[in-house]
């Protein structure tokens, strides 16, 4: 969550890459690369398990018997039940495997929804400005400042509305996570739009008679969209944690409708007093591994995109020296640091060869910073 990104120099190769992560991998070295490889491996396993759950899981996620033979309850790990069984006699391993599928579905749905809502809102708000912009900024900041889990709970109750079948539950969880993320995409994209708005190519398009919608979604969108993958990666880990938190508190998906790790951990809490560890430890490890995987990728992306931190191994080119020097000045000129878990507002997103900080700050119109904003000016 608290990852300060200074997306100063986009890695140029990245855009041409076909295999996700490969170009990123090339641009790393040493320990950084090891961390990235671990992250990519974890996520690959997660995705494979999620997709192939039916083939991998030994039993169904809510299965408690084979024919007439009930599974033992609270059985320790054994050959029949590799990770033991729960108090209800469900197979822990199967629940974990199917839980991966639930998590993947929710994360993907939440990412798609928040990008499709947050990004256009940010572009329009930044480009159109005026009262609309101020109202949207105020609302998103109010939402952003609020404890996200609480917001997610309220929204998930509202969306689920009593129905908690697999589909309804997954949609409810995704929508509630979306509500947390929209303000983040909104802020980042709005900032990038403000910067892009002042670029000559936008003026050129305007002079050439392009309609505002074309400028916004043709010219500006394609130029501000490069920050989105980083943000989406960072958000994915938070999405999984929020989903687990919802499940843990009992606002998630019904256990008979889909397997969910947070719910299982909640149930496991009462087993602890009896010394039964396998019902809680294994789903917990599953969460940790997946979130770690995503976080490692995010961290690597962050360090690669942040030339300030690029020190060892790579030969620093003259260009990079310029970037570092300019960026350092930029940081100082930029008085107030940003909230750590958001990429720095992309108005700092100057072209790598010759960033021009003074001009950037001029593009941000003077307006009161709403409360709790770490400061994006």
């Amino acid at each position, binding site marked *: *969550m*608290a*990852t*300060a990104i200074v997306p100063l120099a986009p890695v140029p190769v990245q855009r041409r890459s076909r295999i996700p992560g490969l170009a990123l991998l090339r641009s790393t070295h*040493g*320990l950084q690369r090891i*961390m990235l490889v671990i992250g990519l491996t974890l996520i690959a396993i997660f995705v494979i398990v999620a997709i192939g759950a039916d083939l991998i899981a030994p039993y169904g996620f809510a299965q408690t018997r084979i024919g007439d033979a009930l599974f033992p309850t609270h059985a320790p790990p054994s050959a029949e039940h590799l990770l033991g069984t729960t108090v209800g006699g469900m197979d822990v391993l199967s629940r974990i495997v199917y839980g991966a599928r639930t998590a993947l579905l929710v994360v993907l749905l939440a990412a798609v929804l928040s990008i499709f809502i947050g990004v256009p809102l940010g572009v329009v708000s930044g480009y159109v400005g005026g009262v609309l912009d101020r109202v949207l900024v*105020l*609302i998103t*900041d*109010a939402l952003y*400042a*609020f*404890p*996200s889990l*609480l917001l997610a709970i*309220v*929204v998930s*109750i*509202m969306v689920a*509305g009593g129905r908690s079948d697999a589909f309804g539950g997954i949609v409810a969880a995704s929508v509630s996570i979306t509500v947390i993320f929209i303000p983040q995409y909104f802020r980042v994209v709005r900032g990038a739009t403000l910067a892009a708005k002042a670029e000559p190519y936008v003026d050129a398009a305007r002079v050439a008679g392009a309609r505002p919608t074309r400028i916004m979604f043709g010219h500006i969108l394609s130029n501000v969209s490069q920050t989105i993958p980083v943000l989406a990666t960072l958000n994915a*880990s938070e999405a999984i*944690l929020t989903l687990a*938190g919802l499940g*843990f*508190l009992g*606002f998630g998906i019904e256990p008979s409708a889909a397997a969910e790790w*947070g719910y299982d*951990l*909640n149930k*496991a*809490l009462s087993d*602890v*007093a009896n*010394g039964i*560890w396998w019902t*809680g430890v294994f789903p*917990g490890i599953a*969460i*940790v591994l997946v979130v*770690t995987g995503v*976080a*490692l990728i995010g*961290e690597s992306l962050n360090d690669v995109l942040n030339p*300030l*931190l690029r020190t*060892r191994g790579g030969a620093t080119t003259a260009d990079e020296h310029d970037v570092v020097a300019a960026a*350092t000045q930029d940081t*100082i000129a930029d*008085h*107030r*640091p940003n*909230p750590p878990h958001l990429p720095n507002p992309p108005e700092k997103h100057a072209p790598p060869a010759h960033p021009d900080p003074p001009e950037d700050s001029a593009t941000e119109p003077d307006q*009161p*910073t*709403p*409360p*709790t904003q*770490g*400061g994006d000016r």
Partner: protein
Amino acid sequence: MAKTQTSSRAALLRYLAIRLVLIVPTVFILVTVVFFFMRVIGDPITAAQGGRLSAEALAQRRADAGFDRPLLIQYWEYLSGVFRGDFGSTMTDHREVTEVLLTNGAATLELVFYALIVAFAVGIPLGRLAARHHDRLPDVGIRTFAVLFYAAPVFFVGLLLKLLFSSALHWLPAAGRAETETTLALSKQGPNTNILLIDAIVSGNGAYVVDVLRHAVLPALALGLLTAGVFIRLIRINLLETLRADFVTAARARGVAERKVVSKHAFRNALIPVVTVMGMQIALMLGGAILTENTFEWRGIGFVLSHYLLARDFVAVQGLVTAIAVVVAIASFLIDVINALVDPRVRY
């Protein structure tokens, strides 16, 4: 020179005043959103009696409680109550919402305080160590540690701590804020703050103090380590950037010892962003507190709030959420003021 200083101070005051005034609309938006959200998702009578009463009886009960009146009228009544400082009474257990805020709020405050101690004690030294050994083994180790603590949900860390220290080793209690006798004794004693540590110290009974502290260790660790992970990453990144600043190079060039460069020159400057971020941390910690309190049955705001939410007790939820919104908004304002005082570059 003096003139520019006064004008910049005036600008700063103006900025802070705007920030202060903006708290009102922020809180207002949240109160409104939560009010209407909560009305959409059902009412406590239906949630409690849903299957048991006939449709007519249910409708009668709802009418008696006034839930069938137009939403806007209910909203107006609620708002005017809030302005008078009257948050109403909870519907499920008939407590004054203000009383819930004071007693359970004190418990949450106590938990967050302990957690912050853990977070500072663990986060700052480790973040510093990682930055000093950038990209070498300590850095990698500490960063992995930080990522793991970020990645582990607070309730999973809590579960592991309980398994180890409570059910396996029997060193520490698994749940609650104190033993029942301690709680009873402390609640009988004259005026109490509901911050059990203070109450226990006031009682003068050492056994109570020990009991309260023993109960606090595991929840404080769970919530504190989560926050420590954030602190480590923050300090590391900021210190790394500061260590590359010109004034640090200048200090090195003057022959200042590396140790002193880090501790005197770079570290203090690297702390500034951390102060800024503290405001964001408060919202994060309150979210973490909901989970921690449920894991350890710590009867704070988060614990009761999740129960009120499950019962659809919207009077209680509205009140608590409003209070949380106010706390978050004021805290972030205070952080901004502190930040302006600490960092001479923050001038508007």
